[in-house]
């Protein structure tokens, strides 16, 4: 693949220091985002996906959180090292974000049109009137009925779906290169979710931005994403093309996740489950973080931490000894230590 790289994240670590110790919420995340691509970051609650997304724009509240290591390269410039001034020019301009709760994420007492227009005035140096007009145009673009009227309204006067459209309009106001969508449809009903996903796909075609789509919903990922990164305990455990991942998941965690989903298209007797629970971010095990719950775990999995490595297919990365060359030897020599 010789697509242009927009964003490259290298060994990102975001830790939180609390009275209980240090929580390694994001603990060594690497990924590359190409132009026009949609990358899904999936995982269950506490896996670090949201913290990863907030870290990209350095929106982690400090203290207690801090990016302790790593690089976030936007067109080869490191966001982690940027000065405040420089960072503000990236936020909302080159990289913008939409959040899960459109109600609480919009300022309740400022008309939605103004909330969009202020971003335009800030980054594009437009005067009030044209900025307002552009906000109204954007609202029309995201399919808000009677945008002139709606622009003057406050968030509580809009429905949940409309509010998320406003958020999208706001995020796209300066035609960003990267849009980070953190659970953008989780708070919405399915029929409204379908509208919003469709809208995002359309707008991506028009604008050509890259999207990082954070969600726990594997169905949504498979609908909208080209690439998928599965996170577990602060790390990416599998990163591949979406189609392949859903067809033949490689990492035992991904396999477990997919098989615990109830299927809407056929009747099943019993759902597969993943036994045990996620390790505490304050105290990760030395070896593979999934080993305690993994049906394939051997001694080495407890003793050594696997790296996120390319398999024989260069576009597929997985963090598991099962997919390394030495596995055949391990399989013969070592006993299963599964739960």
């Amino acid at each position, binding site marked *: 693949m010789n697509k242009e790289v927009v964003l490259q994240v290298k060994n990102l670590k975001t830790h939180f220091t609390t009275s209980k110790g240090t929580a390694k919420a994001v603990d060594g995340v690497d990924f590359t985002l190409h132009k026009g691509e949609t990358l899904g970051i999936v995982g269950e609650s506490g896996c670090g996906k949201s913290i990863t997304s907030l870290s990209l724009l350095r929106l982690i509240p400090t203290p207690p959180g801090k990016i302790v290591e790593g690089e976030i390269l936007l067109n080869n410039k490191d966001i982690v090292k940027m000065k405040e001034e420089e960072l503000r020019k990236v936020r909302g301009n080159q990289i913008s974000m939409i959040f899960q709760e459109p109600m609480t994420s919009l300022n309740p007492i400022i008309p939605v049109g103004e909330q969009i227009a202020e*971003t335009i005035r800030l980054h594009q140096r437009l005067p009030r009137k044209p900025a307002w007009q552009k906000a109204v145009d954007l609202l029309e673009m995201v399919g808000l009925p009677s945008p002139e009227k709606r622009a003057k309204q406050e968030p509580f006067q809009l429905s949940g779906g409309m509010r998320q459209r406003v958020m999208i309009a706001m995020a796209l106001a300066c035609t960003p290169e990267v849009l980070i969508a953190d659970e953008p449809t989780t708070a919405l009903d399915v029929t409204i979710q379908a509208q919003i996903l469709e809208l995002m796909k359309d707008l991506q075609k028009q604008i050509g931005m890259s999207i990082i789509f954070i969600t726990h919903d594997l169905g949504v990922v498979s609908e909208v994403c080209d690439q998928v990164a599965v996170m577990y305990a602060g790390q990416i455990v599998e990163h591949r093309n979406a189609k392949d991942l859903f067809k033949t998941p490689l990492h035992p965690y991904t396999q477990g996740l997919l098989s615990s989903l109830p299927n809407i298209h056929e009747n099943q007797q019993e759902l597969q489950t993943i036994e045990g629970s996620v390790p505490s971010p304050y105290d990760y095990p030395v070896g593979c973080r999934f080993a305690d719950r993994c049906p394939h775990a051997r001694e080495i999995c407890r003793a050594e931490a696997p790296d996120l490595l390319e398999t024989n297919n260069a576009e597929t990365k997985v963090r598991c000894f099962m997919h390394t060359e030495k596995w055949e030897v391990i399989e013969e020599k070592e006993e299963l230590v599964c739960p």
Partner: protein
Amino acid sequence: MLLFIAKRLVQIIPVIFGVTLVVFLIMQMVPGDPAAILAGEGASQETIEQYREDLGLNRPVAEQYMSYVSNVFQGDLGNSLKNKQPVLDEILLRLPITMELAFYSILITIVLGLAAGIISAVKPYSIRDVSVMVVALLGISLPSFWLGLLLMYLFSVKLQWLPVAGWDGPLNIILPALTLGVGGAAIVARMTRSSMLDVIGQDYIRTARAKGLKEHFVIYKHALRNALIPVITVVGLQFGSLLGGTVLVESVFAINGLGRMIVDAIRTRDLPMVQGGVLVASLVFVFVNLLVDVLYRAVNKRIDLN
């Protein structure tokens, strides 16, 4: 909105009735005979009876109240027992002074309170925050008359920067207004701080930062306006206790305002004067509350829905 204001105005009428009734009854129960006081010491029983007759104090209580209320609604608050002048004239003379004092005091409450609250909230748990909040705690704890004397001693007696008492020029306003306003400012500061901290933790502040807004935009445009909503209510309540405070402060600084007038009237059992003074003070309070409600709705349109 207009409908809301109209509704609130209608609601004020029973409040006025209530106030007149309470004021009237309390004055009935207070020991001491106004007729005897007016007649002066050593006056004969007949003279006292004569005074009572003239003032209508020998009529049944209910009748006295009815005639009082009907007079009130015609703008007649009766005449002072002491100098026979209409009470309303006296009040109209004194009310502006008290209102001026109240205005500057509330100004100090708002400006000082908001500033301190914001300074604290922007860097919570910093040395700056802690010291501002310690001062605020002091401000709440100090009784206003004592603070008044303290300020007077420091600025008037020791430093001789400001006049001791009276109400002659702009310099005279500073000390009493400070004395009255500081307690409220401390309460407003604490409220502003906690309200700001709450708002700064909200999702929409994160959104504002994600848009690349400058920090002072985030604080003043996005956070402060939301944080002010509960503060407005507190300021409204402060105005009430501030009116009560004028009684003390006007006495300490020898200001001829409404508060001092009421105190003097109580001392001389000048019944119509006390009634009139309390009634007007209550009305001012009721209208200020109305103003606060209107303001609250204007800032926070969401409550229209509930």
